[in-house]
């Protein structure tokens, strides 16, 4: 079978078309699709990388700020405990006041939250000398709990009757009663103890919680 020249030309064109079609279908089209996907992924990753680098810068700044803030907060938090530990404050307050004054009353008011802190108001009523007041204030300022004085009033105590007994030359005993101003002051001290919100640490140690017996008739 012989083909005419025209037929050969047609067959040749057909073969060329088949080759081009096969190239398109088997190689070029998948390649273009792959490249589209790769380009999209590359662009996406470049965007992600840029965002990550920006986040890295921000994170580094944040970590620095965090470190600074943690240090400053630690410095300022001296005496500010975690959670309102009223039993410990009660014992501390009694010890501090009794060292320099005669305690009369501790009146604890309702706590109030201020931001991340709790203010725990206490009114201390005591009798003390003027120096005793200053000692109490000084002890509270340097104490292990952060206490803020929100009010102070001091009044000279009521006049006291002083009885003096003297023995005369005749051997008689003479008693005389005079009134003189008290050297003690009636003091009302308004305090606020500050602590951070949250629970009291589970490992808190109490020096006063020892040497007791428990149980039995509670009205005994």
């Amino acid at each position, binding site marked *: 079978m012989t083909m005419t020249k025209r037929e050969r030309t047609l067959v040749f064109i057909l073969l060329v078309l088949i080759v081009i079609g096969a190239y398109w279908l088997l190689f070029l089209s998948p390649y273009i699709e792959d490249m589209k996907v790769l380009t999209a992924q590359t662009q996406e990753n470049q965007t992600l*990388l840029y965002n990550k680098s920006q986040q*890295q810068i921000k994170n580094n700044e944040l970590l620095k700020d965090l470190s600074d803030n943690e240090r400053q907060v630690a410095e300022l*938090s001296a005496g500010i405990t975690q959670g309102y530990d009223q039993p410990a404050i009660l014992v501390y307050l009694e010890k501090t006041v009794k060292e320099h004054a005669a305690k009369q009353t501790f009146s604890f008011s309702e706590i109030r939250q201020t*931001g*991340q802190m709790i203010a725990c108001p206490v009114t201390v009523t005591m009798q003390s000398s003027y120096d005793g007041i200053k000692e109490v*204030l000084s002890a509270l300022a340097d104490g292990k709990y952060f206490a803020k004085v*929100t009010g102070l009033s001091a009044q000279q105590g009521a006049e006291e009757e002083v009885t003096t007994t003297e023995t005369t030359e005749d051997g008689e005993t003479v008693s005389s009663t005079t009134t003189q101003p008290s050297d003690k002051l009636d003091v009302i001290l308004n305090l606020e103890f*500050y602590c951070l919100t949250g629970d009291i640490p589970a490992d808190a140690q109490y020096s006063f919680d020892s040497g007791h017996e428990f149980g039995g008739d509670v009205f005994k």
Partner: protein
Amino acid sequence: MKNDINLFVKRKNTKNTKKIVAGVLIGAAFLAAFAAFGILLPMNNRVDAQAKLAELEQQLQSYDFTEEDLLANTEKNAMLTQQFEELTRLHESRSDILAYLGDIEDALPTSAQITYMSLTGNQLQITGTAPGDAEVATLSLHLRESDLFSSVFVSSSTVSEESDETMFTLTAALPVSLSGEALVEAGSETDGENSEEETPEQTEEVAS
């Protein structure tokens, strides 16, 4: 004639052979160009693109923090910043009561004495006795000169019938309220400017 021998060799058609050779060469060149530009180049491009993508992914993996970490750090920092601001405010609002007492001690003439003293809010109130108004005025003057008190105001001065001493009441403003916020500037020398306070002429109950 029938048995004549053609002594001349039949000449080959060299023109057609050349054409075929040329055609084959052109075809080979075309195939080579096609293979180079149509297949190898795209394949190289794909390999390069894949390598670039892999490199980017590796760079992305080199970041050892996640967005959750960043968010957590941001929240923690915001909380710490708020805590720091609150603590700063708290420390600024914590008045040094001993400094107030020290200034009162320095201002009070030894011949005068205080019977009642109150520091509440942003006000100091003193009630006491003195030999005369000169001592009360001295106390007022010294308190006014102090850095800690302002608006010093003698609200009453009365001579006691029993002891012939002058009983006085004096108020002054503190720079910071003991319960918190800053109220007045320290060291102000404007006496009696408090709107609730009356003028000295109105209130000075000097019983001679």
